[in-house]
């Protein structure tokens, strides 16, 4: 240890010892001594300053524990500027952050004020290995190549390469069962599954959240209802996931029949009530920013805009395809129902979509 112990004082660079340390002070930079170098009082003040920071840090850790034990995590407190905030989180963050910060600040202050501040210089060494080492490495490599016969045994070399190429195959193949088709999905390709939804002829339309069936008269002109098929909850219960919802979610809007310029199918509305998918055809965000005046539907994620009075065609933004429309009618009890599944896949495009 003795040969690496740094010396005390700031004039260490002028002696002969630095050579041993592997560095020497920069010759041509004049060193201006700090106040703490020249004034012992200032040095003592700096010492006290640093120690105070460490002391405060300890105190804050104690306060952290106190805050942890005493403050109810659900209580709140009013702090000027911050407003009403969670008391526990605030106190814990303040004490812990303060404590840790002060350790760092103390250490830095110590280095700046009390440790030597003479810049020193050290030589760099070439990254490139000395010629001899390179020659030795090359010789070793040649010897290995020769002894193994890697160059001579062509058959061994080629078969080894072949084996190594095939070796990762199992690791890739086992990934196939990252998707294990459920009984309902059996025999269907991803593209098939993406092309069908829960809607069938006669599926009753219920409003999302309340799960109330909807009658045409419930929906005034300018009205909007986020809706799902009536059997969605059962299906979700049975499947244990939200997959069906992702495709089946729709919105119902009602406009003056005069204002409907076009639809995706003749008479797919019911007395001015139109049903469109709620899933954006761009990358699949749920989308229900319906402006009842302009009949525009805006996606909050990437701002694709669809005109629901005009077949759901894209009027702005990155979506390439129109919003799929669901043909609706009423059942014998007068409730709105789907007349069919969607006639095109809902949601984002995919390769096989065509």
């Amino acid at each position, binding site marked *: 240890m003795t040969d690496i112990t740094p010396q005390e004082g700031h004039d260490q660079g002028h002696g002969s010892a630095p050579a041993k340390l592997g560095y020497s002070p920069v010759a041509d930079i004049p060193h201006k001594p700090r106040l703490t170098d020249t004034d012992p009082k200032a040095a003592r003040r700096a010492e006290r300053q640093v120690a105070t920071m460490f002391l405060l840090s300890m105190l804050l850790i104690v306060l952290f524990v106190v805050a942890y034990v005493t403050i109810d995590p659900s209580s709140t407190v009013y702090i000027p500027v911050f407003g009403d905030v969670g008391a526990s*989180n605030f106190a814990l963050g303040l004490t812990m952050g303060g404590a840790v910060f002060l350790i760092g600040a103390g250490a830095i202050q110590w280095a700046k004020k009390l440790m030597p501040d003479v810049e020193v210089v050290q030589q760099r060494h070439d990254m490139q290995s000395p010629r001899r080492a390179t020659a030795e490495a090359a010789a070793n490599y040649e010897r290995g190549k020769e002894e193994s016969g890697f160059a001579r045994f062509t058959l061994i070399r080629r078969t080894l390469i072949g084996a190594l190429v095939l070796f990762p195959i199992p690791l890739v193949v086992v990934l196939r069962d990252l998707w294990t088709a459920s009984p309902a999905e059996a025999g269907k390709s991803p593209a098939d599954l993406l092309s069908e939804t829960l809607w069938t002829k006669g599926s009753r339309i219920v409003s999302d*959240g309340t799960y*109330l069936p909807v009658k045409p008269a419930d929906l005034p002109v300018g009205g909007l209802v986020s809706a799902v098929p009536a059997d969605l909850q059962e299906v979700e219960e049975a499947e244990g996931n939200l997959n069906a919802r992702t495709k089946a979610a729709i919105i119902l809007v009602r406009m003056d029949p005069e204002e409907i310029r076009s639809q995706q199918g003749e008479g797919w509305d019911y007395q001015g009530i139109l049903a469109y998918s709620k899933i954006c055809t761009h990358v699949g965000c749920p989308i229900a920013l319906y402006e009842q005046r302009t009949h525009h539907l805006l996606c909050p994620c990437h701002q694709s805009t669809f005109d629901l009075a005009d077949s759901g065609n894209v009027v702005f933004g990155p979506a390439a395809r129109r919003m799929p429309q669901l043909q609706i009618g009423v059942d014998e009890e007068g409730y709105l129902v789907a007349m069919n599944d969607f006639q095109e896949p809902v949601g984002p495009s995919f390769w096989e979509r065509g």
Partner: protein
Amino acid sequence: MKFLAARRRSPLVASALLVGALAVVGGGYAAIASVQPASAALAVGTETQIDKGQKLFLEGCSSCHGLQAQGTETGPTLIGVGAAAVSFQVSTGRMPLAAPGAQAPRKDNPYSEEDIAAMAAYVASLGPGPAIPTAEQLDYSNADMPYGGELFRINCSQCHQAAGQGGALTQGKYAPNLMEATPQVIYEAMLTGPQSMPVFSDATLPTKDKQAIIAYIRHLQEAPSQGGLSLGKFGPVTEGVFLATAIFAALIGAAVWIGIKSR
């Protein structure tokens, strides 16, 4: 999901359904109005109230909406919009419009409550439309707030943002911030569908559900910010701005402090 299914069978919802079904009888707009128990009283209003309302209308509104409220090129007809629409638009200061723009902004309202009631009575007398919600309808004290939150996320957050901070619509229009909306304003907005907002009628979103939504919005307005400074509750964008400004100022400040030679 069970939770919501149970709700469907609750007698209250059933009665709301019944009311909704009744609405069908009248057909069209009249039916919507008839759902409101208080509409009869308000739709008629006292003669003097209607006269006063008409006077105020002629002074403040008729230049755009026409002398008979029939609508002009600059303002839509008010026949059939109902008292609730008047109350919403005037009490939030959106009407009378100060200047044409993408959308009428919320501002200070110059009218007294009686004035608004008078104008509402006048407009209601022109044709049937949604009435101003009653105190009973606005009483959300027993509302199911978590359920209101669910409905808020289904029906409202796509425009007004999850924390009710508002959001952008197309061509400079916007869904306003809800932090100052009173229960009455919220209810009336759902009922009448002001400006770009679609209508959420009492038939598809019964009073009880509206009360739940109001309860949740009230919570959003009053809730403390558990995590500390809320940064406007706008989400990752303001968090990023705070990161780039305050936090990096502190970190780089510390780095500079380390680098400066002590005197």
